[in-house]
């Protein structure tokens, strides 16, 4: 590709804007058979606490129209095992590793971040303050402007790595959370995490998943997510990592035009693990057709004046 697809998030340069969404790509290594991990802009791994977690009892997912609800409950190997077992392999594969950091307290966020920073080889810290599925999973911080600022500040103190709080869409005014994050020293924000949702099995009158509530992801939520990215882009100067229902190049470009510097792909990766190359090719093709040399010229290029419509 002659065109320049690279983007910058703080001091971090990514060869392209495509990052795997946390919780949708395991620890990355699960996919090395089907994807060259170094070819992705970044690999964001499953949410990590200080210690191992078992997660919720199955069933953990249920499909809904153009989407799915999940309540995995952040099953994970904890930061120590991650640093020992996964990080060296990910580095070897040339992946730019984003770690989705979870915590039940502000101290835990800071401690997990410190361990990852000390370990070396991590590209960025994504702060999961928005997981809707577990009570002690950080959503208490993500739903409060004060809490959001406090987590970011605490983490900011212990790392030089880019700090990227991940915002929840389950709030009235997401842009104010982006602003709180920026004010507290975040290098970027990512959004959206999933929408709190419920699917009832009417035959049994019971929940479809054990945790009752879960998070809605997939194409269904894309129009809401794009709106939120646009709102945040108008509110803050720091880069935005956009996600929610991206399945192809068109969808990715929608987020980029709305103001996202990079995008994450989650659910679509389940449907098609080869989605990465297809989206990248599609973006390149779009740039060729529109004679865009640098992808960064497309960031925020959405023009909100009314469409010129030719009613056929």
């Amino acid at each position: 590709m002659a065109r320049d697809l690279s983007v910058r998030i703080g001091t971090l340069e990514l060869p392209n804007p495509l990052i795997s969404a946390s919780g949708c790509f395991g620890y990355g290594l699960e996919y090395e058979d089907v994807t060259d991990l170094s070819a992705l802009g970044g690999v964001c791994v499953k949410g990590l606490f200080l210690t191992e977690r078992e997660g919720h009892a199955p069933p953990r997912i249920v499909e809904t129209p153009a989407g799915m609800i999940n309540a995995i409950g952040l099953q994970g190997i904890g930061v120590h095992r991650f640093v020992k077992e996964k990080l060296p392999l990910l580095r070897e594969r040339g992946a730019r590793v984003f770690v989705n950091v979870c915590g039940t307290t502000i101290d835990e966020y800071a401690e997990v971040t410190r361990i990852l920073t000390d370990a070396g080889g991590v590209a960025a810290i994504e702060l999961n303050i928005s997981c809707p599925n577990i009570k002690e999973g950080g959503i208490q911080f993500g739903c409060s402007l004060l809490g959001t600022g406090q987590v970011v500040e605490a983490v900011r103190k212990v790392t030089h790595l880019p700090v990227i709080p991940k915002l929840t869409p389950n709030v009235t005014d997401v842009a104010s959370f982006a602003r709180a994050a920026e004010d507290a020293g975040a290098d970027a924000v990512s959004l959206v995490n999933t929408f709190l949702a419920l699917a009832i099995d009417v035959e049994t009158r019971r929940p479809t998943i054990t945790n009752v509530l879960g998070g809605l992801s997939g194409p269904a939520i894309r129009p809401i997510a794009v709106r939120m990215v646009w709102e945040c882009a108008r509110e803050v100067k720091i880069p935005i990592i956009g996600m929610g229902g991206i399945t192809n190049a068109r969808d990715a470009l929608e987020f980029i035009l709305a103001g996202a510097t990079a995008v994450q792909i989650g659910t679509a990766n389940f449907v098609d693990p080869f989605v990465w190359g297809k989206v990248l090719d599609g973006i390149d093709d779009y740039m060729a057709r529109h004679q865009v040399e640098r992808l960064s010229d497309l960031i925020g290029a959405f023009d909100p004046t009314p469409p010129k419509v030719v009613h056929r």
Partner: protein
Amino acid sequence: MPPLDVDATVLENRPLSRDYNVLTLSAGDVGAHTVAGQFVMVRPATMTDTLLRRPFSVFEVLRDAAGTATAISILNKRAGRTTQALYDARVGDRVATLGPLGRAYTPPSTGQEAWMVAGGVGLAPFWTLAMRLVAAGIPTTLIYGARSGAELFYLDFFERLGVRLVLTTEDGSRGEHGRVTLPLDRELAGRDPQSIMVYACGPEPMLEAVAHVATRHHQPCEVSVERTMGCGLGGCYSCVVKVQHGTGTPHYVRSCISGPVFDGAEIVWD
């Protein structure tokens, strides 16, 4: 072998009953590398309202005269939207087919017989397994249960292959009246410990019962579990099953990559 994603064409749709059919897909490359017990994740292109793929055992691997795999089939049972679409599929329809995926059945140790225990659509992995076992000269039994005689499929095939058949039906219309565990329990009685490798596939209550019977008779047993799968590749952690090694702490492991085939004695049944 990394899994392939083949944009397969439906080559044949053979209805077996009101609920069952066999769908042949032009995914020979997937078949070429499939080991009995593995599965594919499929998504018909012509469907109205589903997003995720669904897991299916590879049933047959079809081969040309030279032995090259040309297609696979899946044994499909109507249970919801995808399986309905696969039941209704027409020749020429497209079905995205990703595989082979997951852990296969372990071959029996030297001197062991092989007993395959199938409940309903749980027959699916045993076509390829039987081929493999018979080719290796291993005495093979299929204990196969269904709701009724009309839902016992492919008996000729297994007979021709030289597989000993033990049949049960819930309504007594063919074979023994009742569940597969009845003949299994009876016939395992008095057999030397470790002399028979038991393979099971079917509803989980059946798997649990089979594992229990096998353990009681000191026979090794592998079961193939069927959890809701989001991705089939270890990405989503939706498909977990609780597993305990020896006296260790039970852990949730992903059945799509650590399974779907597990040592029956290691599963902690909910």
